[in-house]
């Protein structure tokens, strides 16, 4: 299949709370010292899904798209080193501070410029804004169906069979291609790029497109957001912890049990 995977570069979502800072006036996260940005953790899983589908099929092509600053090239390189064939970087100052809805429009325009695909794979959400709307949006703009939160995906004749995660269980669905599918963490570990592949990836092409190349310059820019960011801040958490002491683990356990009883919690 001709598959397009969308990958986003984000601040490391495992940044400890103590290193996480916000510039409230600029309504922006201040990059944490010494913590490099990473690929949104679900996105390599989407790349993995693409590679496995084509491996099972014995052919096909995987193109990776990322919209972001110049450093987002690293997110594309990572997917290429996993085995994807080509990359497209959407980078332009017109993309600064756009919302997820504009991002969906830009990604859909890029997919159309690439001539479409049999399947577009994405992550279930980008772990910066935690929205989870771009897959649905790209599907809507392209006029194709969307299946979210996939934990397994396989070809079934001319259609795709997808097992997806529900709040209280799982669901198996069938959808015709072309389609957009978003991948959830239950999909499992993505492969780790090997040195040889990292070297091969250096030779793969990464095209660079601007908003004008996509014909959407007029819709981009923070002024055209449909979701306005009014404020961004770090919520305050107070610590009032009482550490339960004791000479032995057993005594600590007893003291905790007594405290819990006194507080009518057990």
């Amino acid at each position: 299949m001709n598959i397009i995977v969308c990958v986003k570069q984000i601040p490391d979502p495992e940044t400890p709370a103590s290193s996480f800072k916000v510039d409230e006036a600029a309504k922006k996260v201040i990059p944490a010292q010494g913590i490099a940005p990473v690929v949104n953790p679900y996105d390599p899983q989407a790349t993995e899904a693409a590679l496995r589908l084509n491996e099972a099929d014995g052919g096909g092509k995987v193109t990776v798209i990322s919209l972001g600053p110049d450093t987002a090239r690293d997110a594309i390189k990572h997917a290429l080193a996993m085995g994807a064939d080509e990359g497209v970087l959407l980078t332009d100052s017109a993309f600064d501070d756009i919302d997820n809805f504009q991002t969906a429009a830009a990604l859909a325009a890029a997919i159309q410029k690439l001539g479409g695909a049999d399947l577009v794979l994405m992550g279930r959400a980008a772990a910066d804004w935690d929205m989870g709307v771009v897959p649905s949006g790209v599907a809507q703009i392209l006029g194709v169906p969307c299946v979210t939160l996939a934990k397994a995906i396989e070809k079934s004749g001319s259609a795709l069979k997808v097992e997806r995660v529900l709040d209280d269980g799982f669901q198996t669905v069938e959808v015709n291609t072309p389609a957009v599918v978003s991948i959830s963490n239950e999909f499992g570990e993505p492969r780790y790029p090997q040195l040889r592949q990292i070297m091969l990836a250096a030779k793969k092409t990464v095209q660079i497109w601007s908003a004008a190349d996509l014909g959407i310059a007029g819709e981009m820019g923070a002024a055209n957001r449909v979701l306005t960011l009014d404020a961004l801040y770090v919520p305050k958490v107070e610590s009032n912890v009482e550490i339960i002491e004791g000479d032995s683990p057993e005594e600590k356990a007893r003291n905790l049990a007594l405290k819990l009883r006194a507080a009518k919690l057990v």
Partner: protein
Amino acid sequence: MAGILVIAEAQEGALAPISAELLGAARKLAGEGAGTVTALVAGSEALAKELISLGADAAIAASNAALADGTADAWVPAVEAAISQSGADIILLGQTSLGRDLGPALAFKFNTAVAMDCVEVKADGGKLKATRSAYGGNARAEVSFKNSPAIATIKAKSFDGLAPDAGRSGAVSTIDAAGTPRVKVLATTKAESTGVRIEDAPVVVAGGRGLGDQSAFGMLEELANLLKGATGASRAACDLGWYPPSQQVGLTGKTVSPNLYIAIAISGASQHMAGMAGSKNIIAINKDADANMVKVSKFAIIEDYKKVVPALIEEIKKLG
């Protein structure tokens, strides 16, 4: 016209808890001048009447069987019909399997925005303003909407429902609109749940990666059973295959707010906290005194859980 449309949900013929919570949020907005509250639910008029008793001014039962599978394709025309009937310019959904898909589908259909997983909403001059967590729970974002309708999905347990009052009155109607799903549901499997549902449990005992192996969950279940609670897990523990994903607590798992949450060998990453920070009393058992979970807890024991948990079980049994 202005007003709020709530997309209520039912499970096995009864209203799901999120429906009352959504109506709680909608009544707050109505009180702030956002107009009247209309609730839409797939199912019978009896369910719609129940929504009136929970605070809706009007309720619509969507009778089309295609809605049962919960596909956005089927639901969008039903919501469109409800919007034209009610004139709503604010739509509230739950951050549930349905809302996660339907919220964005509606937003892109109507060329507007959806704010996902909101923890607070308010009406400011009739306009929706929403607060949501971002960056895995490390940050809060306040957002507003350029276009209409304004759409928000609401995080579970963020709002209290009203006490049902059969004396409330309101118009109940039925619609039959539904779209044709392009996604065909072949099978739906419910997660095996033994005992109390984790979302409803007054006590949750949860374990993390620090447990070191799957078998330790037996000990946690014993403690949970003793306290008539449920057992949960961090995503790290679920991803390792130690516990079912349906019991995962956090941003991408369940939201719980029990009276007592006992976190055993869980560090307290922001994404985990996003699912349990509303717990009334947090207890941490952790080797590391600097763990975030310890900082947010009421009581903590700094110790190897293997030495503490069995003793704690015995001590609680002794208390009778």
